[in-house]
């Protein structure tokens, strides 16, 4: 572990803030500048003239563009994402409920894909060019090329409708809805915290299929990169030296090679997590998963720009945060960036 100097950390935080700012500019342009009728996009085409007029003045559409932007920014800072057309609620409130659902799904998927993907990549590298390697690479390649939402549809039909192995759409059976009070918003965690083991198992059966499907798509990237990193290391002198020293193959892998690729893997994981969030957005509607994805998709259908942009900002921010954390982790964990002292 090396200490990150304040200036290095500061530089990175600054970049994060600038990126976020630019994201907000982009969403502003998308929301206000691009559409022919920004107001209609927010309150819906069928709203009455009074609502339209009220929204027009609230948005300050008669103001010059940069002032509009300022109004927009101050609104966001106060957590005001506008109101949703469908529910009439503030989008921020809807997001508070929807975001944890997506978070839970994406997190479980990333955990599964890591614990499957990394070992598979290691094995593929060790048994390079053998049947095992080729088999793993084909599986990874298919995962890389498959449309996740389609795979979700197929999976749902086979494993739920057909085999009844997995729970169906939604986070729990309709029977259990609303029985667990949201503490963290993560149903698996909340149900355990409140001692509702039956609900826990039910929730698990519902989340496992979408999580596995998302994990398969993400696993492809993780496996490929792990294999590539490991192969790089296998040619290095220190690996040969370790073998010459008599270190057994398994121990070489865990004790010597894995630490050397760990840092690169963290970046891979961060990118995968971001990709999983995006994948979840498209796939949630297939599983009727009440997360940001379904929220945004429904909003799209009715042209509710507020909701769509709010989702864009939130996911965009999480994306950037992940990149930032991966960057910082990289700088912290690699001791080679220290100066030679002797």
């Amino acid at each position, binding site marked *: 572990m090396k200490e990150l100097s304040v200036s290095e950390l500061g530089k990175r935080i600054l970049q994060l803030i600038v990126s976020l700012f630019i994201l907000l500019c982009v969403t502003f342009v998308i929301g206000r500048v691009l559409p022919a009728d920004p107001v209609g996009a927010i309150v819906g085409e069928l709203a009455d003239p009074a609502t339209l007029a009220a929204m027009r003045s609230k948005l300050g559409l008669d103001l010059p563009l940069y002032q509009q932007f300022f109004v927009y920014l101050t609104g966001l800072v106060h957590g005001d994402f506008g109101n949703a057309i469908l529910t009439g609620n503030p989008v921020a409130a809807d997001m508070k409920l929807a975001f944890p659902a997506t978070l839970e799904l994406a997190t479980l998927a990333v955990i599964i894909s890591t614990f499957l993907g990394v070992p598979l990549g290691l094995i593929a590298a060790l048994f390079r060019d053998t049947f095992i390697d080729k088999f793993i690479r084909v599986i990874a390649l298919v995962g890389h090329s498959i449309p996740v939402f389609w795979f979700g549809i197929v999976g749902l039909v086979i494993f739920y409708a057909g085999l009844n192995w997995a729970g169906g759409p939604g986070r729990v059976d309709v029977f259990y809805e609303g029985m667990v009070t949201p503490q963290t918003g993560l149903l698996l965690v909340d149900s355990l915290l409140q001692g509702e083991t039956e609900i826990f198992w039910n929730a698990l059966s519902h989340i496992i299929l979408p999580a596995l499907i998302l994990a398969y798509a993400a696993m492809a990237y993780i496996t490929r990169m792990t294999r590539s990193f490991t192969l790089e290391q296998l040619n*290095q*002198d*220190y690996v*040969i*030296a*370790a*073998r*010459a*020293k*008599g*270190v*057994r*193959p398994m121990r070489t892998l865990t*004790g*010597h090679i894995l*630490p*050397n690729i760990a840092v690169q893997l963290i970046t891979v994981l961060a990118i995968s997590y971001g990709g999983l969030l995006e994948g979840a957005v498209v796939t949630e509607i297939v599983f009727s998963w009440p997360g940001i994805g379904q929220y945004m998709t429904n909003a799209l259908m009715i042209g509710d720009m507020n909701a769509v942009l709010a989702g864009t900002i939130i996911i965009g921010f999480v994306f950037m945060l992940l990149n930032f954390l991966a960057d910082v982790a990289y700088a912290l964990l690699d*001791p*080679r960036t*220290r100066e*030679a*002292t*002797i």
Partner: protein
Amino acid sequence: MPALDQSPVISVRDLNVRFAQSTLHAVSNVSFHIGRERVGIVGESGSGKSTTGRALMRLLPPSAVVTAERMDFGGAPLLSRTERQMGALRGKDMALIMQDPRYSLNPLLPIGKQVAEAATLHLALKGKAAYDQARAMLERVRIDNPERVMKLYPHQISGGMGQRVMIAMMLIARPKLVIADEPTSALDVSVRRDVLVLLDELVRENNSGLLLISHDIRMVAAFCERILVMYAGRVVETLTKLEDAEHPYTRGLIAALPDPRHRVKRLKVLDRKAINAELAQ
């Protein structure tokens, strides 16, 4: 005092190494034996000297095809052993010292841990005992303040110190055969002699055999009792003294060395045509 074991450490006859994609032999019909003595292999890049060294430890990449009429270590054949059996030999009875400690030490592990690992593997020591043994070995290779060095990372120490660490790590189990592959080529000239002297000392102390591989014929001649000269995968000559050189290649190598006592206007260049012709015979 019991008589020192004088049996040959390793005995090789007609060693051939070929890499999968090519029909050219990297090592061609090489034969030698090493007893409790210091043997050197001299050659230019591509002569096959490093490949020979690695072949002995069976550390070549899987694409290499290694055959030999005989390759015996301590009397028992090496080529027929499984990878597992080889793993038991490596580090314990046979050791390899590599060229550049910046790359041959694991960059992410502290020095102490890496040396202690060798102690754990071969001396059945754990935890603190392994560390103590590691410290003792680091002292033996003349590193000052070993306690401090053990906490450092490979990129924080100098090349000379790194090679001493390498030597400590590989010789901690007193292996019978030490293969040193260009051990000083990556070091400052001023440090080279010290490292070699140290290696020499340890090898004599353990009554082991040393195979010193280098492109520096003078250095090899100074430290080894026997010299094998390799060219294009073959052993072209075996010498005990530089003056005895007869083969045109060896004589060419020696003639190319600058000697302050015999000044010349131009250093001689190898006449490869003649050498290749001689080899083709």
